[in-house]
Structures are given as structure tokens and as C-alpha cells.
């Protein structure tokens, strides 16, 4: 099956937005898709502005579906993908990519794990070879597992255990907001579970999920589409498909009451509040309005929460957040998600004062709704941010790969600005009235630990025992 959108040049599509007087400028890049006989989906977008490329291969497995008793395993496994194969031992991957003038990385998220590279175009063939090679088999080495277990535990220390706030708004908040293991567990991993991971676990996870028919490979850059399809066919088509386990249900039982808790933090002197509202499913009618509401409340100094909490009432120092924040955009996930607010506030302010001001802000959104001008402004910003997310080949490859992984098509990547332009103030207001209510939220107040007591409170998040 082969789809082609557009021709081999960029074009600007001018469409009149429904409500705003100025026409919205829409941008699309020519993009094509092909499915190999082993199920691997390949997406190519040509961009001849520089002699480089970006590549992303996303697998349909994230930490939501990692096994019980193995929290953090999807991410630990991601590290093992960089530890070599029988053909290309540990170190070859980085030597080849960096020696080709490029860079690489991997990211584990709720519903996907991505491997990304960018380099001058001369490195395309060896990079494709490397991606195909680690989809054939890995070096299942105990020594490398021990090494990466140490590295990952240092990663958890640097980002969680030794860090003020310890990502509590990203790890503890879903832990409290959700009730089932897939959505609530500590995705960075309890050390007990990381320590328990065995080489058999690595093998099994690889055999279950790392299959061509569970992956989307996207390539963006100074390439000819047909040539790329030929190259990918050459390197990947002999890799056999696997039986990938069917995706289990990950829906949550309904939340019926507000959830409040307090944590102490011995590494910070400034308190912070995290608030998470459960969101509608990604493709439900309210989903785009949810994304717009999230940005109206959180996007930059013009946002409603910044203006009211930081500037007007002066009860907060900073405000961050949005739908699926901070682990991705409001459009890139495939299961239960939160709209999260992370608010740092002065010690002179109480949690009640801050929450009262926050609630008044939400109440105002529900009672009056945003103005048309507010919606137009934030939608323009979201369009600009989304294009920013497509600017560099490596980022555009990521976006194309995620959309195709979740929906079987990359159309959403170019459709998002148009969908956003259709959102009305009434839809935002209706969304807020339905979802931004206390019974649908979880609040964690993270306060500095009392100084004189030697409390060991910087414990692991996510209910580690």
C-alpha cells in the first residue's frame, strides 16, 4: 500500500479560518507512506533545505504496558537497544553515527519508544543498516544489563532522587490520579524492580514487542522518496514479523472524588503544587478543545494562570503544564492522560490560598468561557509551536512516526493546525465545565521537609516500597 500526499516541493495552503478575520497560514510538507510485507510502515518526507536527514523508528510499546513487578523496564530495555548486537558489538552504533557527523538518542514514553538519529546525508545507509541490525537480534549480555542497570539508576538519581521536586508532577501525580497498574505505576522504575530485571526479561520483551509489524520508520531530509523506499526495503524486508501481543484495555474506572495528598521534599525550600485532571480520550469530540484549554491556561506569560496567579494575585512564582505535559504534546499518547499544572509558590502563601486563586480562574473559564480573541490568539500560538515541532528533520520524523504508529496514518501531523482553527470558545467552555471539576482531579502539595528532623522523605516516587 502506498500513499502520496503533495508533490516534491513545499507549498503554502491559504485557508480562511472560520472565525478569525486574518487567513490562517497552513503549511504541509510532501510526505509518502509505504508498508513492507513484514508490516513495517515507512514514512518519507523530503526536505532539501540542507544536505542532512532525521530518522525516527517508533515501536508500539511504552511504559504503560511494561510487566508488573518490572516497573521501569521499558526504559531500561530502551538502554539495552544501544548495547550492541552479535553483528555490531557495543560501541559500534555510536562510533558509526557520531563518526558520520550525527547524533542519536532514544525516548521511552507511555505508548511508544522511539529511536532517533540525525546526520549529514552521507550517513543514511549505515544508519539504516544499524536500525535494521538491532531489529534482527541483540547482544543479550548480562554484563551490559548490569552496566545499564547502573546507568539507569544514576539517571533516576539525577532526575528524581537528587533533584528538587523529583518530577513528582510527572511520576507521583499519575500514580495518585489513576487506579490501575498500567497508568499509575512508577514508569522510571523502583530500584527493587530494576534490580530484579533479568536477561530473560530483556529477551522476552524484545521478542514480544520489537517487531517490524509493531514499528514505524520515518525519514525526513535531503532524500528522494523512491530511493529511500528501495533502501529500506533492502535493509529491513528480510526481518520476519512476529506475533505481537494484542493491546490490553488500559481504561480507568471512573473517578468520583477529589484526591488530595501532601509530600515532603528535603531538597527544596520552595513549595510546589501539582494538579492533574483526567482528560477525555484522544480522539473524542472534546479532545481538541482540551488541548486548547490546556494552552489557554498554561502557554507562556499570556496564559490565564500565569496572568492571574503570578501577576495579579501574586500567589505563584511559576506555572507550567498542559495536556500530556511534560512527557509530550497534547496529541501524542494513546491511553488515559492528565492535564497537569505544576505551580511553584512562595513560602508566604498557603496551599489553600493558591488553590482558591486557581479555582477562581477555572471557575471563570467555566462561567464566562474564553473570548473569541483569546482562542484565536492561543490557537495561533499552538500552530506556531506545532510547526516548531516540525522544523528540524529529526523532530518532524518523530511527529510523523508517532502519528502513524497511533493512527495508521500521518495525516494528523498536518491536520492539527486545521483542527485547532475550528475550536470555538463554546467548545472550550463546555470542555471545562465537564472535565475541570474537583471530582475529576488529583492534587499533590509538595512542601519543604522540616529542617531540624532527619526525615528521609526524598524517597522514591510512585509508591515505592
Amino acid at each position, binding site marked *: 500500500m502506498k500513499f502520496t500526499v503533495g508533490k516534491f516541493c513545499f507549498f503554502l495552503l491559504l485557508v480562511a479560518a472560520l472565525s478569525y478575520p486574518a487567513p490562517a*497560514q497552513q503549511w504541509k510538507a510532501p510526505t509518502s507512506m509505504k508498508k513492507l510485507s513484514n508490516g513495517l510502515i515507512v514514512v518519507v518526507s523530503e526536505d532539501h533545505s540542507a544536505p542532512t536527514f532525521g530518522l525516527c523508528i517508533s515501536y508500539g510499546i511504552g511504559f504503560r504496558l511494561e510487566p508488573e513487578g518490572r516497573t521501569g523496564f521499558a526504559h531500561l530495555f530502551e538502554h539495552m537497544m544501544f548495547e550492541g548486537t552479535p553483528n555490531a558489538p557495543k560501541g559500534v552504533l555510536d562510533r558509526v553515527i557520531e563518526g558520520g557527523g550525527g547524533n542519536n538518542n532514544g525516548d521511552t514514553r507511555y505508548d511508544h519508544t522511539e529511536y532517533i538519529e540525525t546526520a549529514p546525508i552521507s550517513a543514511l545507509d549505515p544508519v539504516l543498516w544499524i536500525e535494521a541490525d538491532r531489529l534482527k537480534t541483540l547482544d543479550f549480555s548480562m554484563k551490559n544489563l548490569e552496566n545499564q542497570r*547502573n546507568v539507569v539508576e544514576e539517571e533516576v538519581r539525577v532526575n528524581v532522587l537528587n533533584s528538587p521536586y523529583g518530577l513528582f508532577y510527572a511520576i507521583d501525580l499519575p500514580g495518585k490520579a489513576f487506579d490501575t497498574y498500567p497508568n499509575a505505576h512508577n514508569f522510571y522504575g523502583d530500584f527493587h524492580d530494576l534490580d530484579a530485571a533479568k536477561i530473560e526479561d530483556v529477551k522476552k520483551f524484545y521478542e514480544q514487542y520489537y517487531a517490524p509489524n509493531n514499528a514505524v520508520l520515518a525519514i525526513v531530509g535531503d532524500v528522494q522518496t523512491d530511493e529511500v523506499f528501495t533502501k529500506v526495503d533492502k535493509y529491513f524486508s528480510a526481518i520476519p514479523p512476529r506475533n505481537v501481543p494484542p493491546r490490553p484495555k488500559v481504561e480507568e474506572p471512573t473517578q468520583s472524588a477529589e484526591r488530595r495528598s501532601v509530600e515532603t521534599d528535603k531538597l527544596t525550600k520552595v513549595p510546589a503544587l501539582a494538579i492533574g485532571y483526567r482528560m477525555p480520550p484522544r480522539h473524542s469530540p472534546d479532545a481538541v478543545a482540551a488541548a486548547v484549554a490546556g494552552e489557554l491556561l498554561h502557554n507562556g506569560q499570556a496564559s490565564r494562570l500565569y496572568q492571574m496567579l503570578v501577576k495579579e494575585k501574586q500567589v505563584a512564582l511559576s506555572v507550567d503544564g498542559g495536556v500530556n505535559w511534560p512527557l509530550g504534546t497534547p496529541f501524542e499518547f494513546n491511553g488515559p492522560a492528565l492535564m497537569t499544572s505544576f505551580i511553584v509558590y512562595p513560602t508566604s502563601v498557603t496551599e489553600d490560598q493558591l488553590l482558591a486563586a486557581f479555582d477562581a480562574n477555572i471557575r471563570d473559564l467555566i462561567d464566562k468561557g474564553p473570548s473569541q480573541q483569546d482562542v*484565536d490568539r492561543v490557537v495561533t500560538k499552538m500552530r506556531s509551536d506545532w*510547526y516548531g515541532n516540525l522544523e528540524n528533520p529529526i523532530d518532524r520524523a518523530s511527529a510523523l512516526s508517532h502519528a502513524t504508529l497511533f493512527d495508521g496514518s500521518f495525516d494528523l501531523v498536518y491536520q492539527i493546525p486545521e483542527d485547532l482553527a475550528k475550536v470555538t470558545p463554546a467548545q472550550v467552555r463546555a470542555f471545562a465545565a465537564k472535565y475541570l471539576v474537583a471530582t475529576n482531579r488529583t492534587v499533590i502539595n509538595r512542601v519543604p521537609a522540616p529542617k531540624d528532623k532527619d526525615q528521609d522523605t526524598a524517597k522514591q516516587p510512585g509508591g515505592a516500597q
Partner: protein
Amino acid sequence: MTLVQMIPSIIGLTSGMHSMRIFVVVLLLASFARAQKETPLPKDIPPYGPEKPLATPSVRSVTLDNGLSLWLVSEPGFPKVALTVAVRGGLAADPANRPGLSELLSKTIDQGTGTRTAKQIAEELQAAGGDLTASATKDSVEISSVVLSSRLDSAIAVLADILENASFPDAEVTLAKRNLTDSLEQREAEPRFLASRARDKVLFADHPYHVTSPTRDSIAAATPTDLRQVFAQRFRPDQGVLIAVGDFQNDKIVATLKSAFRFWKTPANAPASAISAPSVSIDHAVYIVPRPGSVQTTIELATTGPKLGDPDFEVTQVANAIYGGAFSSRLTSNIREDKGYTYSPYSFLASYLKAGEMISHADVRNEVTAPTLNEIEYELNRVATTPPTEEELSKAKRYIVGLEALRLQDRSSLANRLATLWVAGLQPEQIGISGKKVSAATAAEVDAVGQKYFPAHRSAIIAVGEEKVVRDALSSFGLPFHTVQ
């Protein structure tokens, strides 16, 4: 915990000099053995394809009648434009009794003009698809926004109003001072902030380059008048550059900018004179920044490196990429991929107008503080004493040139790079010149900068963590200890 059991060789380490020395010898042998066996690449891996020249940006330079420099990179197609304005004079130019004032300036410069409130500024920029980012470096203050090209004119209008008419309203300054004090408290909880603040104090002592942030006292003492004065001194067109990269036509944007900045005048008085170069003397000592409750030690080794425009700069970049500036570098291979001490080791050059720094960084669990320092010093000394292999050299050169091309594809990264060059008095062509110098670097040249900059005894050691842990762990090195904040 099982972690400690996995690395029993480290437990006895803190007991004294004797076990330390044995440890060092063993590690040296192990590391040399590793370095010598560079595994050949797999036979069937395809070679790199034909090289396409990595084009350097084509910059049009224009000077307006008022003295404002414009550097313009027209890249039609993708519908965004990155705008950056830089003026000379940053943290190092602040009044001595107001350290860090430039940071307060960058927090308040967009908080009002004669005709726009802070909220109006934020909303107008959001309607153009952008945010405003203002930041102070040691040598400059820079203001950036990335906007939709269809809304470029309105973004330029807001930017011009700020640059000419920022008014630093009293109420906004009062709020910004309070929030900056609290945010200082917040940052002081972060090991990397503590490390960089201590590092520049140790390296630059009394020279103004030691300032990385304001202090509680300097924030408390700062007034709107201070800000207005510094703003008037620095934000004059003859001391600034406006850089635009993206989707516009050169002639059209020049006309728009001419009109937008027509009232901005260069005053008759001379601009502030440049600061002098610091004279740096470094003690190979351990500077502890106590951070109670730390489960890791954040270790930085800091020394001087080439400044911006220094003839050594590019070859030192190559040496740094071999040492710790890439994932496949020696430092990462050693303390992460071989020993698993750390997630995020790295080294980098921080280059300023009048000085440069070379920094190695690693956050490691408390138990491996000593062996990590040992390995970092070993790898520094290895660069200082042995030339790179052919593969290392060619990989590092290609990495730097390739990464630079990839980075400068990004509109805002290119705008920021050009701003740094302008502030340093360098031309846009420097990007291409630097690339050629990197590509031409020889093993002998890398060896020479290795000898010059890399010997470990040239570095001060900054350690942020539990004071007792650090002292116990590092006592066997026999180096002087100092406690700094």
C-alpha cells in the same frame, strides 16, 4: 542495598592512601587495555555515502542609519522567523555593587513600555505565534522570539517598542525582585546551579566573570532606576545587532525594520568601555559545595580554555570531542558505558569574550565519588600525554562539523550563534572558517592543545554533595579542601 554489593572494590576505598594507589594502578592498566583494542567495524556495514558540502549560512549584513546592525538570513518556505537582538554588556558589565543586575534586567525588560503593559506585550507576541525569551550572558543581553512569518510585522513592532521604550514600571520591578529572590532559592536546590556558581567563583575570583547570578543582597538593593540606567547605557543601536532567520524577503524586512526603529537613536556619549581580561590562577584543590540530603556527588573539573576567537579554539574543540564532548568519547565510554558510575557525563568548552573555560561534569552516586574523580583525571591526563588514534581524530572532526550543520539548520539556534559571533566582534563567515579549521586539525595539533589545556593538575575540582561523603571519599587524593557556596 544490592547496588553496593555489585561494586565491592569500591567499598574499601575511603580507608586511606594505600588502597587508593592500588586502585589507580589497576584502573590505568584496565583503561589502556581497553583503549588499545578498537574493535573493527562489522564487515557488511555499508560505508558512508558521497559527502555533500554542508553549506554555511548566507548572511546579509546591513547597518541602519542609527548604527543598528542587521544580520539577515532569508530562508523562504517554512513559515517561521527567529528574531534575536543582542547588545554588548552583560553580567560582567554590571555595577560592582549590583552583581547579577543583568538578570533582573532580562526578567523585567518586557514588563512594560510607555504604551504597552506587560500583559499586552505577552498577548501581542502570542498572537504572532511567539514568546519572548530574554537572558543575560557574561558579555551580552539577548532577547529572542520565534514567530509565524505571517505575523512578523506585529512581532517586530512589539520588539522595537521594548528596545526603545522599556519603562521598568515600579510595581513590576517589585514583583520581579520578589520572584527572583524565590527563584534563586529554588535554583540553589539544584546541584548543577551550585556547581556552576562555585566554579566561576573559583576560576575568576574577583574578576566580574565570576558572577553567574544575582545575590539576595543585590536583588534587595536593586531599584527601577538602576535598571533604567543600565538599560539606557546598553540598549543603544550602535551597541546592538538584530538577527532574523527564516521566511522573509530581505528588502521587505529591511524596510520594515528601518521604519520600526526610526525613533531609536544612538546617544552622543561614548559606550561603556570593554572589561579587561581576567588573570586566572587555579589551585588543584577540592572545592566542596555542601548540599545536605544529596544522594549523588556532582563533580566538575574546571580549568581555563580558549576564549572566543582564540586560534586554539577549533583544535581544542576536537580534543574535547575525543575526551568527553560526544557519546562515543573516552570519558563517556569509561565512566558510563564501562563502569556505570553515571548517567550523564560530559565535557564542554564555555568561551567568552575575554576568557574561556573547559569543564568536565558527572553526577555520580555517593559511593563512587572517588573512583569517578580518579577516572576523570586519568582521562584528562591521557589527552595531555598521548595523541589521538586516527579513528578518534576523524570521528571527532566529522562529529563537530556535522553537528554544527545540523544545529544551524534550526532557525533560532542559528540566530543565537550569530548573536554570539557579533558580540565577540567576529563575522558570520567565522562559521565556515571554524569548520575548515576543525576539518584540517592534525593529531599533532590535538596533542599540542592536549598538553596545553588538559593536564588534570590545571583543574579545580568542584564537588556538590553531602560534605562528609565528599571529604571521606576524596581525602585519599591528598589535595587541599575548601568549602564554598
